[in-house]
């Protein structure tokens, strides 16, 4: 888990939220733990491994902050800690994700499932007004 010293720091969250329809809907996203692991194979110093929980995980002992993983990841789910100059991402909290524990309405659940695009259709449906605003509806 990314330790933030108890303060609320959204910039250090590994779950990001794309606002849709003028902030009336939101699409959260995080690492898909993709099969290629573009971040892992791009890392020039072997700082990214696969944890027992099946998550690609960054070792801050080895990470040099070179940012290559942040442009190699095509999903935009590798982040750069601008204070530490290290890369960070969702590591599934060792198989007990804090996000699932914290969510008050059980919208986030920890289940073993096939990696898939679970939000594309939702986001598309909620983009109608944005498309209309640029004349592309």
């Amino acid at each position, binding site marked *: 888990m990314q330790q933030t010293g108890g303060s609320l720091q959204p910039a250090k969250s590994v779950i990001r939220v794309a606002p849709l329809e003028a902030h009336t809907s939101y699409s959260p996203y995080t690492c898909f733990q993709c099969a290629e692991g573009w971040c892992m194979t791009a890392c*020039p110093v072997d700082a990214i491994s696969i944890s027992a929980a099946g998550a690609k995980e960054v070792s801050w002992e080895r990470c040099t902050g070179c940012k290559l993983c942040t442009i190699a990841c*095509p999903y935009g789910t590798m982040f750069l800690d601008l204070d530490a100059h290290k890369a960070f991402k969702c590591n599934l909290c060792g198989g007990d994700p804090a996000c699932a524990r914290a969510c008050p309405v059980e919208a986030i659940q920890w289940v073993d499932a096939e990696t898939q695009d679970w939000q594309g259709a939702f986001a*598309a449906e909620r983009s109608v007004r944005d498309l209309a605003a640029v004349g592309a509806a």
Partner: protein
Amino acid sequence: MKHVVVGAGTAGFNAITTLLSIQPDADVTLVSAEVPYARMVLPYYLSSEIEEGNVYTITPSRLEELGVKLQLGARASGLDRVAKRVLLEGGGSVEYDHLLIATGSSSVRPPVPGIDGERVFDHWTLADTQALRAVIRPGAEVAIVGAGFIAFTIVNPLLHAGCKLTLIEREPHVLPRMLNAEAAAVLEGWLRDHGVAIHTRASLERIEDAPDGSKRVIVNGSALSTQYSVLVIATGIRPNLEWLRDSGLSIDRGLIVDEQLRTNDPAVYAAGDVAEVRDAVTGQRAVMAIETAAMEQGRIVGAAMAGQPRTYAGGMLMNVIESAGLQAASFGDWAGSAATEGRAAGGHYRRYIWDGDRLTGAVIVGPAHQVAGENDMGMLKGLVQSGRPLGRWQRLLAERPFEVRKAFLSAGSVADLLPRTVLGEPSKPLEAALRS
């Protein structure tokens, strides 16, 4: 089957580890003038953010433990394809059944008077970094000749070391092979605000020694007003192909290879900076002198050597640098002409290049905290890599260039990208791959 890899850089290293992960008892010989290390992280060693030990991708003893025969310090001088032998400088040769040429590039200095004088450095090899580390001091006036990607990798280390920095570039703007003029203007303005002197359209004519022992730099017919204690030459690199001139291998800008990265001799592969491959975005042949392309190509060749040929999907240009808190990146066909642009407050600029409704390239420059806040740089890479027609979302992105997340998530890019892998199967982390 004797596998020989010439060059221990990213391409050669990834070929060896991939080959051994599939075939742990493979007969592999590594011929390399240098020990294996990661060029990408040399700037962090220059700035002492990491130790020398973190620079190495693998140690020679670990390679020996894995059964790799080592010819370190040996430089290939020729290729006898009839006898299937790599000839070594100073005599001797290594026999192969399969050969990978991954000899990378060397930095090239412009042939001007004074260029080989005292306190003129390069920044390309580990030895270069060690030499430069020994001379940079707080307050030192340092000029970098050539303001391309390599120069920019050492801007932060030199600024952190307290050096006063000057960039000298022959082209009309800095990073001419990574950024368009508008993006470069943002970067130049930012750097000048941070005390960096920048001279563009400045062609180096000669370097002289001033009476006080400092260096005087003459560009466009007159001397720059500042004198420098250290000069770094970063005017370009050239693939190391001279040793292959008489080999009969087809060479244009690099060794011409097919989709399995074989040269015109099916026993000889090429990867990394010496290979001329297909650019996956433009469809043209190109030398992709970047880390990720070398890594992917090395893995493709390693698998092929292990009897598992794979088709290389082609390379995609991508570069990222951060200088004094400003981040700049470009992807794919970033210089393409069918472009839309966008700007936001604080010096945040984007340029998107389109082929109909497909994003084929992108340029992004902005303060690092803003780029991190938008958190869409990787998604731009994903949109270019996927090549997916964006339909109505193309219009959205062209009109609202900062709404990448919406377009990326809505247009089905994730579903398009998830099945993709380089080797047709899930990747393994390095150490796990070598244990199996």
